[in-house]
């Protein structure tokens, strides 16, 4: 039976359910605005967000998402797992579950982490509603308004609104081809110490970073873990893509190097199985974990029981590693296609990263190009990407863009990159006409290039801790100066 609602005007007569009455007067708006929490003032909607509404149209080739290709998951396997759950454990699968998650599902998590060389205690794990909730819960647990959180520049665009909503004072540390610049991190820590401030945590995506596409070198991993231990600050290691490596040597996660004392580990099934099941996890030292679990209880009581059952069932079949292997082969091909297309269609003044894994390539254009505006122009050609500004808290990244290669097929990648290349070239030509002689410079400070000669000489010198053999290939500062 339909619920009977009463509008303010009709308190007596039962009405069929209607959507809410419009509130439009200035007084109404100001009244709501007066009730908003302080933290909402840093949560921004914008014209750019509206622009993203256009990217959802079917004719648009979107390189903007971070989507795994779920079409590769066999529907009959999904049907079989779900039937089995329905037949054998319907009541339990439809019931609430423990806040920290089911032990059997944690066993699957232990299996995934073991595949990357980690051996967590299942009691240190809490299962979350996706990796995004993991970031939210950890921040909720650790950050008071004004507390310092350190992250990479650029950082995961989805972490920016989380840190902002908890009113963190976010400091971003530059990266180069070997990931976060640990020398700059040390300088920042010293600076904060001088101010009498201790950062709450360092958030990092060390492998195949989103959006930068770069990977933290082994040497820097060791230094980062050592720094955390020495300063007694936490590192939050977000590792959604670790198993999606398409070349090069696997590197140990920070969690493994540290042993779990100062590293909080965030994982997810989104990229190795499905983002739709919304299953992620946090591994943290017991005192931290206890607070995270309390926070999770307040947020949503427990993670979906049904999808935890699904993961158990799926892992029991034993084919999960084979499926990840299929994804790796598929995405490797798409990455290569995108790199080829970039070389063919992007102008000489552009640079981009060559990721060894993950889902993203980060491209940087001449400084005078604002990729937010470029997106508007690109949408007229039915192609989309994420403007780089989304990966910064301070408005930087305006001349960069994030490109996704996992969610679209080879043909769309080639066509999409060709279209973006076309609109960039138009802007470059126009700028040349407007400011003759100034438009021929290579990509401005902002990102990595494929070629060492793209890099300012002093920047190469600054990348002191890069292994010598890499210096010629991929050590290009993601951003040279902090005032861009």
């Amino acid at each position, binding site marked *: 039976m339909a619920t009977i609602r009463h509008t303010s005007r009709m308190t007596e007569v039962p009405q069929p359910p209607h959507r809410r009455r419009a509130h439009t007067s200035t007084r109404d708006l100001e009244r709501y605005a007066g009730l908003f929490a302080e933290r909402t003032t840093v949560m921004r909607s914008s014209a750019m967000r509206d622009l993203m509404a256009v990217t959802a149209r079917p004719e648009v080739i979107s390189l903007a998402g971070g989507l795994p290709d779920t079409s590769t998951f066999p529907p009959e396997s999904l049907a079989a797992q779900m039937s089995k759950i329905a037949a054998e454990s319907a009541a339990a699968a439809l019931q609430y579950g423990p806040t920290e998650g089911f032990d059997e599902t944690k066993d699957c998590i232990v299996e995934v982490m073991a595949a990357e060389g980690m051996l967590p205690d299942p009691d240190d794990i809490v299962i979350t509603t996706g990796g995004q909730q993991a970031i939210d819960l950890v921040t909720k647990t650790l950050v008071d308004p004004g507390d310092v959180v350190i992250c990479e520049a650029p950082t995961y665009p989805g972490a920016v609104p989380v840190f902002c909503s908890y009113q963190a004072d976010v400091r971003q540390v530059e990266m180069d081809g070997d990931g976060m610049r640990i020398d700059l991190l040390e300088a920042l820590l010293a600076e904060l110490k001088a101010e009498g401030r201790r950062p709450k945590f360092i958030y990092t995506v060390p492998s195949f970073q989103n959006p930068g596409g770069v990977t933290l070198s082994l040497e820097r991993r060791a230094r980062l873990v050592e720094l955390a231990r020495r300063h007694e600050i936490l590192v939050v290691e977000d590792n959604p893509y670790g198993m999606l490596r398409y070349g090069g040597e696997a590197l140990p996660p920070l969690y493994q190097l540290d042993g779990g004392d100062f590293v909080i580990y965030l994982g997810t099934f989104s990229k190795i199985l499905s983002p739709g099941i919304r299953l992620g996890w946090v591994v943290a030292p017991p005192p931290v974990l206890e607070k995270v679990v309390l926070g999770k209880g307040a947020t949503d009581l427990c993670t979906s029981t049904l999808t935890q059952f699904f993961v158990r069932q799926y892992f029991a079949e034993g084919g999960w590693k084979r499926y990840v292997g299929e994804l790796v082969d598929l995405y490797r091909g798409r990455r290569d296609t995108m790199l080829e297309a970039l070389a063919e269609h992007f102008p000489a003044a552009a640079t981009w990263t060559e990721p060894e894994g993950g889902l993203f390539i980060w491209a940087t254009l001449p400084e005078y190009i*604002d990729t937010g505006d470029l997106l508007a122009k690109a949408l007229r050609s039915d192609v989309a990407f994420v403007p780089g500004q989304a990966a910064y808290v301070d408005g930087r990244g305006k001349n960069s863009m994030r490109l996704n290669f996992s969610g679209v097929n080879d043909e769309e990648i080639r066509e999409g990159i060709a279209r973006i290349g076309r609109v960039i070239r138009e802007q470059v030509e126009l700028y040349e006409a407007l*400011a003759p002689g100034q438009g021929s410079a290579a990509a401005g400070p902002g990102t990595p290039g494929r070629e060492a000669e793209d890099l300012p000489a002093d920047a190469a010198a600054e990348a002191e801790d890069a292994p010598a053999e890499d210096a010629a290939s991929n050590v290009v500062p993601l951003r040279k100066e902090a005032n861009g």
Partner: protein
Amino acid sequence: MKVAVLKGGRSLERGVSLRSGARVEDALDRLGHEVVPIDVGADLVKRLRAEQPDVAFVAMHGVGGEDGTAQELLEILGIPFTGPDAAACARSIDKVMAKAAMRAAGIPTPDSFAFTQTAFRDLGAADALTDLEGTLGFPLVVKPSRGGSSLGVKFASAPADVPGALVAAFSYDDRVMLERFVEGREVAVSVLGGEALPIVEAIPAEGDPYDFEARYEIGRTHFVCPADLSPTERSAITDAALATCRALGCEGFARVDLILGADGPWVLEANAIPGLTDTSLLPQAAEAAGMSFEDLVERILHLALSPAGVS
């Protein structure tokens, strides 16, 4: 009555349009009309022919919806529609054309110059930039000629900013405008059936007048309606807004954006299809005039069906 609500489309302001459209649909539903929501696409004509609506409520914004394209089709199909006719829409959305019409009618609008990409690429217009910057002074505003929101609008505070601002503006349109910056209070006049509704003033909360994105966002902009103005200011603003609507042919339904400078009001532009979202200015102005959102929607519909009602 069977009302087709046209919304969405390919415009860059698709998001705002979908929100406007959804609210209009709710209101129409509450008013007892039969609502046919249409996300405008390649099948628009086919759908309109199949649905045979009595009237179309146009809730589209930006190029493709507010520029007369959809209106032209509706005119051909003989379906009455809300808002200005195709010609008035085309005039209003193009700031260069609109300004020419305003100047011809003696309406104060900031000095400006317009250029196409061709002028820069093939005719060396860049060489003329210095002269025109001298005329307009700094800071100046660079805008795409067409487009209703703040997208692509940039301030240039020095000559070095101009090429980048032009490249940005050309991302949105093939013609852009450099306009003298007028300092003052931001006010908007909504016009309905040839009459001006109470004036809304938008005051940026954070005080950065160059941050266009903060405009019209709850919590970041304060709205005052009716705006706190002297009777002289009020009538100067209202007169300028109504004259603008007459000059452009959109006196039935429009919103005119102005700056109240030290020397009086300056008209920036007229929006032929003003936003109807929760934070839009037209519904606020209507509410201040004692009209609920439903009243407003009914009135807009009525104007579409009896355009003679426009005085």
